[in-house]
């Protein structure tokens, strides 16, 4: 058998050729599997709702229509949801990056008295959490139920992000800040004018994580703000669409699929497809451009403490 794979075709071994062929096919398969569900949703969202009920939409719309999107954008609740999603994402990202980098800067100063204690003080919170009920009471006692602040304030400090930024700052040469300190710059100026500008790549990563986390969050709306329509978010609206679909039977499409709702020009399926695209495209447009940054950031996060 070993000899068989060693047969040469031109200058390549048969075994190598077979391997690369199979491997390439496997990778193409991965690409299709990762992409298709999303691609198919795009096709459905741009297809006429009634036509979709006939089934068989795969890669492209059969009867092109933007009606699903029009009805999503006309819906007042959806407009509120989109606005809230954008606002919470912007605020959480800006504040998250500032607070995270500030803490990371302080923890990276070797001369800080009590540095070890303060570091452990933050690290411990990564592993110990009070849990759902005590946290709910905390939010309630702080008066943040059904307030916009509940989207921004509780998640401000992410220890994981701090660890990542700190590893990056520590990889910078000491001379960088030493020179500034000798020139009489205080710690705040050192942080703001020297360290932050050097951290652009890692801050881009952390900003992406903060943005993704805030944008994709639905559970806090569900738990802390479900009583307030004006605080709804895109993901929460999506959650409501999906759960009504799941609860109205084991399978949504078998209920709406038999054409009973012929009078309607939108169907739950088409609306859900359109909301899926609206609620995910903003991030999917951004991430490929930040790829080289977050790849580095992930690696920093797993380096030893």
């Amino acid at each position, binding site marked *: 058998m070993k000899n068989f794979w060693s047969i040469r075709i031109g200058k390549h071994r048969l*075994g190598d050729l077979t391997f690369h062929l199979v491997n390439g096919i496997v990778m193409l398969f991965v*690409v299709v599997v990762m992409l298709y569900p999303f691609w198919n949703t795009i096709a459905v969202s741009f297809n006429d709702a009634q036509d979709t009920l006939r089934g068989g939409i795969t890669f492209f719309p059969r009867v092109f229509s933007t009606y699903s999107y029009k009805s999503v954008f006309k819906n007042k609740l959806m407009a509120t949801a989109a606005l809230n999603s954008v606002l919470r994402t912007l605020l959480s990202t800006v504040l998250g990056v500032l607070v995270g980098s*500030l803490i990371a800067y302080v923890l990276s100063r070797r001369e*800080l008295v009590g540095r070890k204690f303060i570091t452990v003080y933050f690290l411990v919170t990564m592993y110990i959490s009070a849990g759902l009920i005590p946290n709910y009471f905390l939010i309630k006692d702080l008066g943040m139920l059904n307030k916009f602040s509940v989207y921004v304030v509780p998640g401000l400090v992410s220890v994981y992000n701090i660890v990542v930024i700190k590893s990056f700052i520590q990889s910078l040469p000491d001379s960088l800040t030493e020179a500034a300190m000798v020139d009489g710059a205080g710690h705040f100026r050192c942080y703001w004018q020297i360290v932050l500008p050097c951290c652009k790549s890692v801050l881009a990563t952390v900003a992406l994580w903060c943005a993704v986390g805030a944008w994709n*969050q639905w559970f806090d709306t569900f738990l802390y703000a479900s009583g307030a329509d004006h605080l709804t978010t895109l*993901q929460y609206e999506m959650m409501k669409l999906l759960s009504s679909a*799941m609860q109205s039977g084991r399978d949504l499409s078998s209920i709406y699929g038999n054409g009973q709702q012929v009078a309607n020009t939108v169907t739950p399926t088409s609306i859900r497809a359109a909301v899926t695209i609206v609620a995910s495209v903003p991030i999917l447009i951004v991430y490929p451009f930040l790829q080289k940054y977050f790849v580095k950031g992930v690696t920093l996060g797993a380096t030893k403490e």
Partner: protein
Amino acid sequence: MGKYQKTLKKMAGQKILYLMIVPCMIYTFIFSYYPLSGWIMAFQNYKPAKGYAGSTFVGLDQFMFLFEDIEFWRSVRNTLMMSVMNLAFSFVFAIVFALLLNEIKSLGLKRITQTVSYLPHFLSWIIVCSLVSNILSTNDGMLNNILMGLGLIDKPVLWLGEQKYFWWVTTFSNIWKETGWNSIIYIAAISGIDQSLYEAAELDGAGRFQKMWHVTLPGIKSTIVVLLIMNLGWVLNASFEVPYILGSGLLQDVSQTIDIFVLKYGMSIGNYSLATAAGIFKSVISLLLVFGTNAIANKLGENSLM
């Protein structure tokens, strides 16, 4: 000057640093440490109207009640099973994917595959669940269409309606969402392996798979261990969203996890004490897992996290 005075003087010189960090520490105290006082509820028959001081102390009664509840143990089993399946399969898939991707020669194909494989990570679980329910649908769902097209089944399988499939549904949802993302770290670790090791192995007559087994895998072993420890601490938290969103009433026996149990008893039924007790149980198990794996990693002479 005494030692303390020296330290104090040093601290005084660093007051800006403290000005920067102390507000953050207070914040962390309020949002991470202070809520731990809520654990008192688990040892009381807590009534919100009476507060901690006014509620009756019941000792370990809530835990006793919990441990006699078959529904609770079922939640523990579901949590553990789904967590272990997720963890094991995501690790294997991510590592194999990284190994195979590393062998791709064409830079273009490599880059496209990588970028596309990260896509699902950026989707929310709500959207992933929505996509999963589309794919598994009995009416024009992709999986049923393909299986029927191949003649493997005669009529659509109710993937989301039968208990026996549910854990696999959650596992594969996780694999789909996170394989690409998890592989980032392995790809980075592989690229850091000393190339001369491969050359030496080649001189010894090692083939492609032998090099993977004897050079690449040992080269990323410490990365695997560190990640395993980090993930074990969070593994029980991971089993909330998919079971909560996709596990409808009929599937409750296999889909209800500890988190869902806490949500149900705490928020819907209003039995805060019992729910908190269940939450504490989960936290303790998580901690044991972290320290346990860390200790084992230490014994094996691997880099440990703490």
